[in-house]
């Protein structure tokens, strides 16, 4: 269990997934990828992806909890899937904006 800070970069310990925290609720929560806790300085060779959390991550996609309090940006893809306290995160649907630059 750890508290997450906006802007923080975390790595999976069981696959190549890396994320950046866009927004996070106060207090501790258990952020896992591929079923294993994520860490700031983790290396990705300390185990294998739990088959229950193996749907993978996609670079550039934003992952959110049901209530939207936690939002992550996938900055490196991998085989594991992201979950908080055992519940898998969902991909946030994007809003289409007109081109502005």
């Amino acid at each position: 269990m750890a508290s997450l800070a906006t802007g923080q970069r975390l790595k999976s310990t069981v696959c190549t997934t890396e994320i950046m925290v866009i927004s996070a609720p106060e207090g501790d929560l258990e952020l896992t990828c591929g079923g294993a806790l994520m860490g700031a300085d983790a290396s990705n060779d300390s185990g294998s992806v739990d088959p229950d959390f193996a749907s993978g991550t996609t670079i550039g996609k934003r992952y959110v909890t049901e209530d939207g309090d936690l939002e992550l940006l996938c900055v490196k893809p991998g085989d594991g899937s992201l979950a908080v306290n055992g519940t898998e995160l969902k991909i946030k649907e994007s809003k289409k904006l007109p081109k502005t630059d």
Partner: protein
Amino acid sequence: MNIALFLEMAAEAQGDRVAFKDALTGESISFAGLYKAAQAKSQVLHESGASHCALIDTSNLTIPVALFASGWSGIPYVPINYRLTTDEIDALIDRVKPAFVVTDAERREAWVDRDDLIIHDRQSFRDVHAQSDDIAHWSMEPDDVAVVLFTSGTTGAPKAAIMRHRHLVSYTLMMDFGSADEDEAALVTVPPYHIAGIAAILTSVYQCRRVVQLATFEPDNWLRVAREEGITSTFVVPTMLARIVESLEGQRSANLPNLQAISYGGGKMPLNVIRKAMDLFPDTEFTNAYGLTETSSTITVLGPEEHRTAVASIDPTTQKRLTSVGLPVPGIEIAIRDDEGRDLATNVHGEIFVRGDQVSGEYEGIGSRVDDDGWFPTRDAGYVDDDGYLFLDGRADDVIVRGGENLSPGEIEDVLRDHECVRDAAVVGMPSEEWGEAVAAAVEVSHDVSVETLQSWVREHMRSSRVPEQIQFWDELPYNETGKLLRRIVKEAFADPSST
């Protein structure tokens, strides 16, 4: 949070794709190449001991390298207007030294002996290597300063606006990562020291979209490059679009079928220009984007659908939408307040306040102008209509106070520009013993017209307090290079009795 992360992601996802191409030299660099270059130069910046990385040059491939290398090394990136006088540039450099400077060969020559600057031109910056082989990791601290931009200072000395990584990251995250198709290309003609120039780099990299840089703007060349490079989107300031439209005079279409989107902003777009442009670019979607340096660029947009509806409509309210800057983008809130800071109702004119994660509202040496609730006073005046569309009146400082009544120069200018003989108009306040301030106008005309005729024209369309007491005929109204009307110069002409 760090803007360098976006480049890392683009290099990971689309490393081989062309990231930037300089239309002038034909040179290009891929996302992977840009990532490698930014990494190498971040170490050079780190070893230099400089407090800022200043860039004084036209658009070229070293611009994105310097921007991302600065973010990577944790040194603020400071693009400076290369068109300023030597004295003006000296004064700005003094505010950011000891600085690492990338500039043109001539300026490098002149500055090479200064011991408070590490100075490079494009070529030497490309060639310089770090002493060590270390690869630095960038800071993810959201509050680190990413960019310092000197505001154009149409009213006084330039202020140094500060943008932290969290502001620029928040702005860029409005876009979808990697959403550009391989054949998409953005033509970037806004200068590197303009917030729109920085925004274009960040959002293009995040979308993995090729940028074609055009260092100097000339309408025929712009059209040629757009055609040859298969440009799909671009941003222009109003003066650029006006000149493109002018150069297409007599033609039925611009003949740029690939150009999907033109967005515009940075100044007031004359109605006749946008209408003509929509005729000449029938397959192109138009978007009006309103933003400030202090808000990390765009905060409201008037989209393509609203453009089409406004032009096709016979309903005056819908037609008027074409003069609106649109609705707030996601994450942005807008409020209109009076001089006492009280919220105003819809359709009532006041000062525009803005709130959102991309809003920095902070200046070096002055501090943050954002209040405790997160609201930033833009000093732009305007109002919001019943459907939430924002309309601009101009700078709050430009509002003319005549006998206690607040008059918006923009509204009077619109009426003057609608006269068939008037090409452009600038309305300012001039000192008046009777009213405190009175209305004065400088106009650019296409055909001869008398002062009296224009005065009665305004009287027919507006309340009599709006009628200019004095009107001067100017050959050319003064604009800065990004299309901002330099009202100060017009004001001076009316303040000085010898000129009237």
